[in-house]
């Protein structure tokens, strides 16, 4: 059993993480992200005749419905991929994006219906007042759902140039007990950090339970930039409201940073994780799942999450008494990352600042300095090791 020590006190952390004008303000980040998507659809609509009508229809939707469509993880996946092809001059004729919108139309989806993935999951559970769908595969076959399953399999299970090996597993349908545990974790998180929880949750649109493992490691929770707005949790690891709350904060914070990547110059132009400088995650072993030499973006992402978890840890410590009655004893198992979060964030801030912040764009450099300030350390400590 791990020892609970008093976590370091941070300087007005929750408010800053949720509201900082440059790095915390979720409504602003989402407004900018939506402007990018609308602009992208306009540009793509001019290049791809097969989707000009869909782009026009989406652009003409009332603001709320337009936001719902452009917030859909599957729509976002397809826009991101099409932008990649546009930049590489590889748009098809017809392009996958045109086929995607044709597929939606075949399924009977209309832009006014809202988010297409959500519309295709009629059996999905709902999470808290955020009304976030919880993945449950529908009884009938759906090309839209299959499309999402294929994306998940590619990013989490298959072996390719961004994964070290093939993994075993898949998406899981939650039973009632698991749904209840998820709801408790969600409630715990919002009780502890109402402002910050609302902020990070606004960056996701689906929660899914999964099993993903290699012979020597397993995913406890995960999210990936290639499937924005989706978070994945392992029921085999997360067994208490405390660990679920921590995992929700962890993965939602990742997604907030993914949105910052779209709206600020966080990484250097032309950044490629396969060739980027690496940072040693000295608390991890290298496994078939992942190396402990993290590419810069992974280290930045971990640092951003550890900063959030350090705040979580501090508040758990401050409010444990009143919450234990509602949510049971604090989880002190090794599943909980927050007790070590401050130390790890401080280490990563120092490492990210090394070599004059090499690999980071101007906003990424400012983000590292800002995170150092939130940790209460002032300027980043230049690591000497």
């Amino acid at each position, binding site marked *: 059993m791990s020892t609970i020590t008093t976590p370091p006190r941070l300087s007005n952390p929750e408010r800053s993480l949720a509201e900082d004008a440059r790095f915390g303000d979720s409504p602003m980040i989402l*407004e*900018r992200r939506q*402007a*990018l998507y609308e*602009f*992208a659809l306009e*540009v793509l609509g001019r290049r791809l005749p097969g989707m000009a009508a869909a782009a026009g229809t989406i652009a003409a939707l009332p603001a709320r419905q337009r936001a719902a469509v452009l917030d859909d993880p599957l729509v976002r996946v397809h826009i991101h991929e099409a*932008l990649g092809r*546009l*930049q590489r*001059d590889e748009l098809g004729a017809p392009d996958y994006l045109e086929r995607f919108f044709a597929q939606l139309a075949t399924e009977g989806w209309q832009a006014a219906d809202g988010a297409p993935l959500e519309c295709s999951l009629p059996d999905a559970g709902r999470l808290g007042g955020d009304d976030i769908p919880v993945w449950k595969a529908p009884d009938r076959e759906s090309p839209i759902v299959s499309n999402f399953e294929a994306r998940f399999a590619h990013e989490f299970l298959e072996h390719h140039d961004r994964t070290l090996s093939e993994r075993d597993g898949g998406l899981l349908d939650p039973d009632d007990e698991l749904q209840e545990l998820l709801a408790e974790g969600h409630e715990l998180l919002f009780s502890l950090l109402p402002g910050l929880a609302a902020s990070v949750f606004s960056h996701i649109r689906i929660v899914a339970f999964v099993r993903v493992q290699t012979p020597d490691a397993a995913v406890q929770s995960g999210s990936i930039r290639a499937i924005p707005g989706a978070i994945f949790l392992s029921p085999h690891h997360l067994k208490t409201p405390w660990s679920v709350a921590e995992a929700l904060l962890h993965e939602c914070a990742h997604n907030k940073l993914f949105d910052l990547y779209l*709206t*600020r*110059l966080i990484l250097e*132009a032309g950044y490629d994780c396969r060739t980027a400088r690496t940072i040693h995650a000295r608390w991890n072993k290298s496994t078939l799942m992942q190396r402990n030499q993290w590419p810069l973006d992974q280290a930045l992402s971990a640092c951003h999450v550890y900063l959030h978890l350090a705040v979580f840890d501090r508040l758990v410590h401050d409010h444990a008494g009143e919450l234990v009655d509602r949510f049971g004893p604090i989880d002190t198992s090794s599943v909980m990352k927050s007790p070590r979060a401050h130390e790890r964030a401080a280490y990563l801030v120092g490492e990210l600042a090394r070599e004059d912040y090499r690999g980071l764009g*101007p906003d990424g450099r400012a983000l590292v300095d800002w995170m150092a300030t939130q940790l209460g350390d002032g300027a980043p400590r230049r690591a000497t090791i």
Partner: protein
Amino acid sequence: MPDTTYCLEPGLEVRGADREWDDYLVHTPRTAGFHWIDRDAWRLLQAASGRTSAELVDAELARAPQADPLLVRRRVTTTVAALADSGLLHAQIAGPVPNQ
């Protein structure tokens, strides 16, 4: 040495001028890239065509005569280099080009 002047990438499209943002979203058709650039960089971009870095520094100093010329020079040079890296601005050699 011939002077290096700059020219604007043709066909740039911009969004965000009507928003309360501290920057703009710029699209370049040639590279198909989307770039967030701050308002100072946008002003420099607009002013850069046919000018050298030194002329841009002079123009910036004329806008803010109290500013430290060294800092202005550094900011203009850095910003122009970043705009050129992003493909929004191109350096071109003015005047006679030496034999290759």
